[in-house]
């Protein structure tokens, strides 16, 4: 079987929160567990199977100066060759650090030279430590600084503001991971068909282990564009508390005055959420439909990832 291996670099200043993020997203840490993490020595490589056939080879690069010098110096070939995605993490509290910016520039230069196809994501992290009313301006300022420094990149960097304490983490990582799934639009077209057939307002596909959003379709507008990441965060937390009592989350069904929500295991590696506001909708029929299209999506996902 062909294996699709994608190399992801996770870089940034020491203490910026790189290991914390990946531990929460991929290794079922709760945010508070990250306080016990030590500094990363050199590079920690991990392989993460995502949606079955996609294998992420995640290079968590220690951010201390001696390591950084090494990465952009002696190890440049080794580190920056064949990279699919680079994620550079800035600590929002120390965002002005000139040394960090110069490392960032060197990394971008190396990427431009060695992996021109690579997409770069910049996370302005630990936003929870910035006072709420300043967050927007801090982020805008930092984004423009990032754009100035990274002008040599063939594919411009994308910026996100993140914190491990809220759903912004899932927003950023969903985008990162979706950039690796080539045929999201095909998936979304099929989800839309499911959505229409079930007379649902929206259908969202999540990766099962991480609960990152893969694709979505909706027939009704909703003002909160970040709602899916919020759901990711909510359900992921709940999954963790289920694990604590040695069981696993399987499905959720909610009905109230305004909506019916169904979150259910879907294909082997995904979960699906359907939201229906039609009050005559019968949840069991939705469940039945979801059950029926499982095999179809199983095959579809496999093709999308090929």
């Amino acid at each position, binding site marked *: 079987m062909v294996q699709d291996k994608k190399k992801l670099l996770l870089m940034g200043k020491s203490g910026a929160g790189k290991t914390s993020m990946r531990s929460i997203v*991929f*290794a*079922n840490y709760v945010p508070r567990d990250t306080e016990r993490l*030590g500094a*990363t020595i050199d590079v*920690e490589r*991990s*392989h*993460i199977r995502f949606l079955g056939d996609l*294998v992420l080879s995640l290079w*968590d690069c220690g951010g201390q100066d001696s390591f950084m010098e090494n990465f952009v110096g002696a190890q440049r070939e080794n580190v920056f060759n064949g990279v699919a995605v680079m994620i550079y993490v800035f600590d929002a509290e120390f965002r002005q650090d000139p040394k960090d910016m110069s490392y960032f520039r060197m990394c971008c230069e190396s990427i431009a030279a060695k992996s021109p196809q690579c997409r770069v994501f910049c996370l302005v992290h630990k936003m929870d430590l910035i006072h709420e009313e300043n967050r927007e301006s801090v982020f805008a300022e930092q984004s423009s600084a990032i754009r100035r420094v990274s002008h040599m990149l063939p594919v411009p960097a994308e910026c996100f503001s993140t914190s491990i*304490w809220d759903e912004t983490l899932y927003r950023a990582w969903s985008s990162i991971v979706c950039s690796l799934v080539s045929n999201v639009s095909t998936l979304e*077209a*099929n989800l839309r*068909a*499911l959505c*229409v057939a079930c007379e649902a307002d929206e259908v969202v596909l999540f990766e099962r*282990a991480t609960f990152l959003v893969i694709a979505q379709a909706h027939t009704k507008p909703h003002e909160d564009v970040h*709602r899916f990441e*919020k759901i990711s965060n*909510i359900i992921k937390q*709940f999954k963790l*508390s*289920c694990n*604590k*009592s*040695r*069981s*696993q*989350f*399987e*499905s*959720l*069904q*909610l*009905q*109230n*005055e*305004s*909506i019916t*929500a169904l979150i259910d295991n879907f294909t*082997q590696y995904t979960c699906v959420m359907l*939201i229906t*506001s*039609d009050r*005559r*909708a*019968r*949840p*069991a*029929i939705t469940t*039945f*439909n979801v059950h*029926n*299209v499982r*095999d*179809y999506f199983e*095959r579809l996902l*496999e*093709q999308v990832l090929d």
Partner: protein
Amino acid sequence: MPGSYDDGLLYSDDYGPYGESVPAEGEAFSGPGSFVRTPLLLSPRMHTPVGAPSVLQEWQNNSNARKSSAPAPHNGHGRAASYGTHAGAEMPPAATQAMYLNAAPEHGAMSRLAEPALGMGAAQMLAAAAAPNAAAASAHSPGLTAPAPSPAAAGLGFLQPPAMQQQQQQQLQQQQQQQLQQLHGDAMSVASSAAENAAAAGTGSLLAPRTVSNVGRVQVAGARNELFAAGKKPNIMMTGLPRSGKTSILSVLFQKVSPHETLFLDSSDKVVKHEIENSAFCQFQLWDVPGVNGSSNAANAFSHTGASLSVHSVVSNDSVFSDCAAVIFVIDVTSEETDEALQRLHHTITRAVATNPNVFIEVFIHKADALTEEQKVQCQRELQGRIDEELEEVGLPGVSARIRYRATSIFDHSVYEAFSQVVQNLIPETHTLESMLDFLVNNCGMEKAFLFDVVSKLYVATDSTPVHPEDFELCSDMIEVIIDVSCIYDSGLQDAARASGNAQWSGADAENAGTGSGGGGNGSSSAAAADSNRAPPPPVNFGYQTHSSATIRLSNNMVLYLKEVSNYLALCCIVRSDVFDAALGLIEYNVGVFKEGLQRVIQYRVDSNR
């Protein structure tokens, strides 16, 4: 070392049985057009609403009739009086009339009957009925378009109870009535013993209508669901050394501050009184009494507060204790000042008991997240040993029995569980609620049931089986999930949530103006100014009936079932999935009965506290 997850769950060389049958090129990708070739999709809309089978309606009428002709709530009053308690402890009449169906196997037929009445069960049958058709349909009619009308209609036909069943139903109805009569009797006897319990629990001056004259400034936390007249609510006082975590506990429980944000809380310098007004059973006043460094110079330390009420004047005033139904003493296990804490605790206990012998004393062994399980047990044993000893020395050995020790931390569920138990002590109806829940659990074959105050996520009652912390955690997390998801999709709830996000918690600027000792003029005007700056805390979720219900299925064959049963109150049950699937209709019916009973308990509580 981090990164220990390399060998974790996500990576394995076992690819799983995957993809033998890849669809032909072009078929899967041609968009919605090709979509209908996938197995049948039913329209979830059933355009003809399915009503309750007549038998159930009749039966409900019957039981209503029974209720109205049931003996008037006589037993409560007479008994309570003979126990010499005040009216607040009187038995609410509800439990005597709660009637449940029984899930015993011989009544299996009945559960089958009840099912079609209730959405989920009905639809499941529909789906099951349609399933065999589905394969056939998709084989015969390739051009089938979604939503497919015909199988849905076929399904509907299935739901109408065949005429043949009518007879059977009538028989069943008779059986049920007999059974109800039996149950009725049972309920009566349990209820009357519950009345005694409630009466006993009510002997403390929990609802003493004494007003506290020397604190003017009040913070309202939570839902602002004001049900009781001022002064009718029990007081809970929290005290302990500085930085022990009192304000943190309150803000996490009642202000929805996330635990890690409490790091930024300033040390309180004033007593703050919080009015907690959530569900009918979560109505009390909370006093956050800061620790004062060096109790001897307390007066000096706070003399500059002028018009504000100084900590010293509250702490030194014995009347504070006489107004308190419970005192929570918070001890920081990570602190070195153990001796000082013990001394203060001892002092607090003796004064509290001297002024109000019925006071509940709760010791929170706090910040227990720093301890292992064994350390928690050991810590509690040591502490208890020393306090018991000291109490013995001063001739108060009996008091030891009134003190409860609980290990707590704001970083897990322990503080919710501990506070729930504190609150339950102050609810005279606890035993009534418990026996109602017992009925529910026994008749439906449930494992566990909690009645939650959804705003605070405290449980106000549970059935009489022991509480396992994991069960409580799951239920409490479920409530959180349901509220969060509901908030995203319900604009009404959204507005409330947004408003609550704006209303920032700020203990430091809470004014305690209008003191009894004069100089109130200044204080009250500044308090008014502070008031206008702060957005009022909003009514939070489930404040209006959203008719929410939810189920979560877990891999260990358990189902969590949640149902909103009153304003701000939700019932959360743990049921085995085989039981749940076999008797959902029954469960829903019985929960309905519980809901009715609960309504009456609440009405009674509200009426008698106006």
